[in-house]
């Protein structure tokens, strides 16, 4: 079984995000970037499956600017066999990402495609579902447990009402929840070894995908600040304020 894992480079989850003064986006200069956390879970799961002898090859793919290659390198350092970097600048919308991944799938013919359930920057939660629609493959979103059974997967999904168990046929697209596993750290020798693993470089144009945005971002702003609370001295005052100011009773 061959697994393709898609990874995205985002602002590190520990960074305090700041909005640019002109409202055109968020500050990314001199900000620590890293792999989107649920994508780390996706890589980890693929590596575990390979370690269990159920996968033969793991290919890590990323789509983005020059430096996005770091995320592929990191995936190689924790166990992926080779990488693909589709170079493209600016915002790439989930639909364009799905179309690019579709072309990669056509080329690589993996049995499974893994990725995080959503990116922590734009919080879209769309790419996996879109890819699965374009490929006409089954989808298993928000996976928190994956069991491989012959040519099927038994997957436990995290949904609002609790947990849902589904069975999907292979090939399939699986999007991973943070609860799926605990991603490992790359060891220094493996980081060194990863530098020698091959990464193919492509462009969206090479793949014949129109990645032009369909949605325009007008501005990014901070949410309204929550007003400070006030203290009341008596129950009577509280009731009076609830009645006349808040008008809730």
């Amino acid at each position, binding site marked *: 079984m061959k697994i393709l894992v898609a990874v995205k480079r985002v*602002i590190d989850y520990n960074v305090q*995000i700041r*909005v640019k003064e002109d409202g055109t986006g*968020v500050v990314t200069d001199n900000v620590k970037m890293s792999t989107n956390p649920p994508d780390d879970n996706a890589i980890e799961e693929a590596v575990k499956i390979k370690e269990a002898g159920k996968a033969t090859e793991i290919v890590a793919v990323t789509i983005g600017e020059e430096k996005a290659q770091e995320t592929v390198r990191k995936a190689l350092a924790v166990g992926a066999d080779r990488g693909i970097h589709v170079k493209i600048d600016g915002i790439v*919308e*989930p*639909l364009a990402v*799905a179309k690019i991944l579709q072309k990669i799938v056509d080329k690589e013919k993996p049995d499974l495609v893994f990725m995080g359930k959503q990116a*922590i*920057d*734009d*919080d*879209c*939660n*769309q*790419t*996996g*579902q*879109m*890819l*699965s*629609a*374009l490929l006409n493959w*089954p*989808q298993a*979103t*928000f996976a928190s447990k994956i069991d491989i059974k012959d040519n099927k997967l038994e997957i436990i*999904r*995290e*949904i*609002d009402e609790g947990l849902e168990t*589904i069975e999907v046929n292979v090939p399939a697209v699986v999007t991973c929840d943070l609860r799926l596993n605990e991603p490992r750290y790359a060891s220094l020798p493996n980081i060194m070894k990863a530098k020698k693993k091959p990464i193919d470089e492509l462009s969206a144009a090479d793949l014949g995908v129109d990645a032009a*945005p*369909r*949605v*325009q*971002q*007008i*501005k*990014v*702003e*901070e*949410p309204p600040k929550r007003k400070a609370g006030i203290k009341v001295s008596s129950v009577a005052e509280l009731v009076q304020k609830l009645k006349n100011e808040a008008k809730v009773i």
Partner: protein
Amino acid sequence: MSILLIAEHNNKELRPFTLNAITAASQIDSDVHALLIGNNCSEVAKALSEIPLVKKVIQAEASHYENFLPENFAPLVVKASENYSHVVSSANTFGKNLMPRIAALLDTSQVSDIIKVISPDTFIRPIYAAMHLQLLKAMIQKNA
């Protein structure tokens, strides 16, 4: 143009988040049609028809719709959405599972998790885990 709203339910009753989606849909255009897909879900259809903002209920029943699988729902919604400008659903795990599949089949981008409708093509949505707000203008017509 009219709005197609996909109702979330459990074949017996409507899920409350659908009501939020109905209100949001009505802010885009007042002609909201609810699409109900399921199995033996007539009670839900009745409940939907009693909501004042819903102008029309379209009910689709089949045994393979019983478990709300997006692989089965998406082709039906794509077909049903032909005469609508927007497709709207709740932004919970039901909508998140289903809507991108529909958007991809329609070859349109999707606007996820909207918290405010500014105009039929302009929305506000949270980004960075709701730490910041993004004002978007969709250059396409079908949104989720």
